[in-house]
């Protein structure tokens, strides 16, 4: 065994050295950073972050389960949000270009209807008109509806000519729209006036409701994620009880003891969010085929847009936040009460 003191002979009792250290005053003690450099502090953060993540990969199956649960819980509201923002995008388009369709009486000749469209064109509150004569209307109908065969059996063209009016930008609210459409409707040749604003309004109201519902679902699932992570961290704390006791006994502060568990929660949340991002994108890819088909049926160049950079960022931040919150809850309730006895 090595000699601790001076080299050679044991030092005599009365030749004893001064004590090695001093018990710090409480002021010194509470300052805390007396010995520790900032470098060591950050190095411990880095190390803890790394080792917490590695620890999760050491039990891949159970970690994966937890991550998947979190991913599903995050992907559901996120997916709804993406769909919702897509469709509200469409209606915003429609609102900006709310048009008035004038369906002419069937006995109005195309020539007269065209004359009328030219007159309407001259109005100050009209941006442009688009005239669709009866033959065009029929062709168009055949093309989109796929009812061409049936129509071939009819002797007469059942469709009226249509004047599609694009109001000037100055017509920008429902009331002015109303004034314009009723003025146009007074023309004797017009059978029916259709303003496509009404359904836009209804749709918007519906989306408002859906938006709120999505928010509520997001909140509920957020709470669920916090609880799941909190419970997982609680088990991790139980498993590492001995280690916690030793660390506290040799002078580990509460923040030091909490740190690995907070990082574990953080990683549960962040990796869960990354997996949620994947899930949402897979779902969008899966939907894109039918959506494009639908869009073509509606004459729309609409394309499903995926998760924006902002939405991705939001998802990651939400994951990290929920992870830390869940871990914090578990740590507060279960870690602080573990004391060496």
């Amino acid at each position, binding site marked *: 065994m090595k000699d601790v003191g001076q080299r050679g002979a044991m030092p005599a009792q009365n030749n004893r*050295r001064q004590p*090695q*250290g001093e*018990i*710090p005053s409480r002021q010194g*003690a509470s300052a805390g950073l007396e010995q520790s450099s900032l470098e060591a502090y950050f190095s411990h953060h880095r190390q803890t972050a790394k080792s917490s993540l590695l620890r999760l990969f050491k039990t891949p199956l159970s970690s994966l389960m937890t991550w998947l649960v979190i991913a599903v819980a995050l992907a559901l509201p996120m997916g709804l949000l993406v769909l919702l923002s897509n469709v509200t995008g469409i209606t915003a388009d429609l609102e900006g270009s709310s048009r008035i369709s004038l369906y002419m009486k069937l006995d109005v000749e195309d020539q007269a209807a065209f004359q009328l469209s030219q007159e309407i064109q001259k109005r100050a509150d009209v941006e442009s008109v688009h005239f669709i004569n009866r033959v065009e209307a029929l062709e168009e109908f055949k093309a989109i509806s796929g009812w061409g065969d049936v129509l071939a059996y009819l002797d007469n063209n059942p469709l009226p000519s249509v004047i599609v009016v694009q109001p000037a930008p100055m017509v920008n609210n429902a009331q002015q729209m109303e004034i314009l459409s009723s003025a146009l409707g007074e023309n004797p040749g017009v059978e029916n006036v259709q303003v496509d604003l009404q359904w836009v309004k209804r749709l918007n109201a519906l989306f408002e409701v859906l938006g709120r519902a999505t928010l509520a679902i997001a909140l509920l699932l957020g709470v669920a994620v916090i609880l799941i992570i909190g419970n997982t961290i609680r088990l991790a704390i139980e498993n590492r009880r001995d280690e916690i006791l030793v660390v506290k006994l040799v002078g580990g502060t509460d923040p030091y003891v909490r740190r690995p568990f907070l990082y574990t929660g953080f990683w549960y949340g962040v990796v869960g969010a990354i997996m949620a991002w994947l899930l949402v994108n897979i779902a969008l890819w899966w939907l894109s085929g039918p959506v494009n088909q639908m869009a073509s049926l509606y004459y729309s160049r609409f394309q499903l847009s995926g998760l924006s950079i902002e939405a991705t960022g939001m998802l990651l931040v939400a994951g990290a936040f929920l992870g830390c919150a869940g871990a914090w809850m578990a740590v507060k309730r279960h870690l602080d009460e573990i004391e060496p006895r």
Partner: protein
Amino acid sequence: MSNDPMIHFDRVTKRYPGGFEALTEVSFKLGRGEMAFLTGHSGAGKSTLLKLIMLMERPNKGQIFVGGQNLDRFSRGQIPYFRRHVGVVFQNHQLLFDRTVFDNVALPLEIAGVAPREIGRRVRAALDKVGLLKKEKVFPITLSGGEQQRVGIARAVVNKPPVLLADEPTGNLDPELSEEIMKLFQQFNQVGVTVLIASHDLALISHMHHRVIRLDHGQLQLG
């Protein structure tokens, strides 16, 4: 200040929840650089006394001073910083078996925020003192009982604490190993560390020629 005792109990009474009085009006002083044994029958209150010094328990009456500091005044948040200056070798709170000997001994330094490059040097110095330098990379499970106890001691002294406490450090060891461990404590004492060891190995204690503090049913026995 340096003539103060290192450990000073002033009429300390400890009653556990449930009413059992583990220590009654215990007063003693342990000088700086002194080494003493704490003995007494099972249940006499030896572990309780050490736990009071570690702030693992608080007294119901009386005051305890360590290094001139009144332990009463330490708040919960200050306790960790205090503990970094008291090395402990406890029978139950022992080594962490999922990390190497080196990492076990490094723990107090990491906690104290010692710079990483400094840690290696100090851990090896501590392992060298207990004669386990060659075992730094192994896991504690592969070590004998005596070697494990020595790793525990290395961990207790790696911070160079002025005070070293041990609770039954030779509890499970044969007489020869026990003596080796005790000599180790003696060596730390010879470089100025104040050492207090709870033990009921009276045979061993008797030929170590150190002061003996004897407890009986929670009361100090003089002489």
